[in-house]
């Protein structure tokens, strides 16, 4: 159980940070787990299908939130989180900064592109599975993911992150190899 939680919880939380922002992400993640617990007895399928099912639940929660309030996509790396990160080890801090920078890039994408990229990468779902969750055709999902990736690449280039700068893609002010 703990292993399952440790594997899935960060993925769900990150997806929700992309989809609805930091302020609601943690509460919604708890809601998703409760719903998973309620429906687990009825689930049938393999690991990939389970992940798709969990993210379908998460996606429904995103829609519910979107109906109540206008989407609030805030910067994933809030000051509070930076403070909390001060106690982390250097490796942990580096991972956190890299993660938050990557999320910030994705959050800047148009919403549909951001959701496709997040579900494809964080949930490790195929284009077909993502299409089913989003209610789109697989071809449309592939177009969205292509546009999203191209936009991300352009942003990285604009920030001066080149292949020669290695880990500098994380969005920190100074390239790590400088």
């Amino acid at each position, binding site marked *: *159980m*703990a292993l399952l*939680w*440790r594997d899935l*919880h*960060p993925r769900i*939380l*990150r997806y929700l940070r992309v989809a609805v922002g930091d302020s609601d992400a943690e509460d919604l993640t*708890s809601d998703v*787990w*409760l719903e*998973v*617990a*309620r*429906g*687990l*007895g009825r689930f049938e399928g393999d690991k990939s299908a389970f992940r798709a099912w969990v993210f379908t639940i998460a996606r429904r929660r995103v829609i519910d939130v979107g109906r109540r309030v206008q989407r609030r996509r805030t910067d994933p790396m809030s000051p509070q*989180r930076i403070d*909390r*990160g001060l106690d*982390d080890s250097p490796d*942990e801090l580096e*991972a*956190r900064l*890299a*993660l938050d*920078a*990557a*999320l910030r*890039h*994705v959050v800047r994408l148009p919403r549909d592109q951001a959701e496709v*990229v*997040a579900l*494809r*990468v*964080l949930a*490790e779902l195929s*284009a077909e599975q993502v299409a089913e969750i989003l209610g789109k055709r697989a071809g449309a999902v*592939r*177009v969205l*993911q*292509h*546009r999203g*990736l191209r936009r*991300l*690449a352009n942003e*990285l280039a604009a920030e001066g*992150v*080149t*292949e020669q*700068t*290695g*880990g500098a*893609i*994380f969005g920190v002010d100074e390239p790590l190899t400088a």
Partner: protein
Amino acid sequence: MSHSPRDMRNDDRVLDGLPVDGGAESLASLMDALRVPGVDHELSDQAQSVAAFRAALGAADTVDRPRRARVKSRRSRFALTLALSGAALVATSGLAYAGALPGAAQDTANGVLADLGVTVPGPNQHAGTHPDTRGNSAAAPENATTAGTDTDATGDTSSGKGKGATISTLTRTTTATGRDKGATISSAASGGKSHAGNPPGKPSAHQSTGTSDQGGTGTADDASGGHDSHGSSTAQATSDGHSSAGSGNAGSHPAAH
């Protein structure tokens, strides 16, 4: 904006974390950063969250239990019905095989099981035309050959009504009284086979010989219309002189059988 197949394949490789062509490494690294295992602040609530998840799981299981019980109950009822049906089939087949079913049922079983390649006896001849009368081979005479023709077993339904009227008339019109009247009526009703009216301790010719077709002079005389020359002598001989057949007793008690 056009997307070449090569672009699409590269997109999939970037998103799936597979090695990519030159020029997309920075993008691949960005995706790798998204995939890093949970960091401390994401996992800080693990104990509480897992406990809450387990509690919710238990609650969901409790809620689902009555439904599962109903499902299980339905399965049990189905299994019980199946078992009882099987038992009934086996029992019926066994009775059919033994020829112990009522006539019509035995006939049906014979036809159905014959289709399945199982040979069971047909309805007992003694069952006659009575679909609800159990055929009893033990009661059937050895020489009975035609079902439904033995009036002793089936009763003569065509003449039954007339016979009843005759007996009724006889009851009202006979001049005999007491035991003689009873013997007269009984004899008429039984077709001459009744022993009623015989004096106590005096066996009839039928009883003494055990041969119903020959015993009793009254019977013999009645049956032959008085032409039976053997009546009295046969009864007398076979009863060692104890028979009253052929005597005046026979005359007054024609239904000696």
